[in-house]
């Protein structure tokens, strides 16, 4: 452990993300937005919501990794984001365990 309890962060360069990366991500996000709206008009049955959510997850990942700099951040911050995601998924899946196994209700 280093002197000030801040481990490798002190020695980690403060990485400045430049405009080129931002513009690239921006265009990717805009293309995905157009894509998701376009696909919505095509009947793919049960795949429609799946694709819509997949594109949304991809866009969110781009924002988190590059606009919010997680790609360049410490392990601690990566772990923090992961734990938030995990807890959100626990809320969803474990509540669903009740709803999908109910005999009543319109599931």
């Amino acid at each position: 452990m280093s002197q000030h309890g801040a481990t490798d962060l002190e020695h980690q360069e403060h990485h400045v993300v430049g405009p080129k990366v931002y513009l690239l991500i921006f265009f990717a996000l805009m293309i995905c937005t157009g894509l998701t709206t376009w696909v919505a008009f095509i009947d793919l049955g049960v795949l429609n919501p799946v694709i819509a959510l997949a594109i949304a997850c991809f866009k969110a990942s781009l924002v988190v990794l590059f606009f919010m700099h997680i790609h360049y951040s410490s392990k601690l911050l990566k772990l923090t984001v992961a734990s938030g995601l995990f807890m959100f998924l626990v809320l969803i899946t474990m509540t669903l365990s009740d709803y999908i196994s109910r005999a009543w209700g319109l599931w």
Partner: protein
Amino acid sequence: MDSPAIATVNGEMHAEAHAHPAHLRHHFETVEQQREAASFGMWLFLLTEVMFFGGMFMAYLIYRNWYHAAFVAGCNTLNIWLGTINTAVLICSSLTMAMAVYSAEKRHKKSLITYLILTIVLGLAFLGIKSVEYAEKFELHHVPGPNFSIEQFVHPTNPKAVALAPDMAEKTQVYFSLYFAMTGMHALHMIIGISILIILVVRAFGGAYTDGHMTTIENFGLYWHFVDIVWIFLFPLLYLISRYR
């Protein structure tokens, strides 16, 4: 008097400390520690926001499956083009916010202020379009409460729309409840964000954030991107349900 039981860091540490930048708070040892702590704290706050919105996403998930036809009908009353434009507007604002952070890093005061103002403008544009949408919903009696009307769903005027049985038509109120709750909560977060942005612009004029201490801009950027991410999910979930009909 402290017990000599605790060994201490060399006394020079304190003298050295007075050569530190003005913005270093005394309970931190280094600027880097302070920066990392602030960033970590902001991310933890964003985790609380994820769980906060999570409750509403849970509700949405259940009711969309229970009342799918009602959700389809409700969704098709939303203007998909306004929704898409709004999504694009927010993505632009995320770009301008990221560029604002970059300008602060590079200590360019003018570009910082420009990008912050652009972010405000785009945020206001989003809210403007949103209020147009809300006004339309109000006129069509789609706001949940005593004035809610299912007329349009039981006897649709649009020939391509599917008529709903009255009890399923009633359930469109659940869809609109979630629509207003989720987009309303998101809009509230945008309003708070824009208010803070205005304060940041004023302070940036005074020279703040371009003197090497730009943690505030960095962490506000995280908040703004998070609000963008919420909309990235709200858009397909609320606007893109079975649009091919």
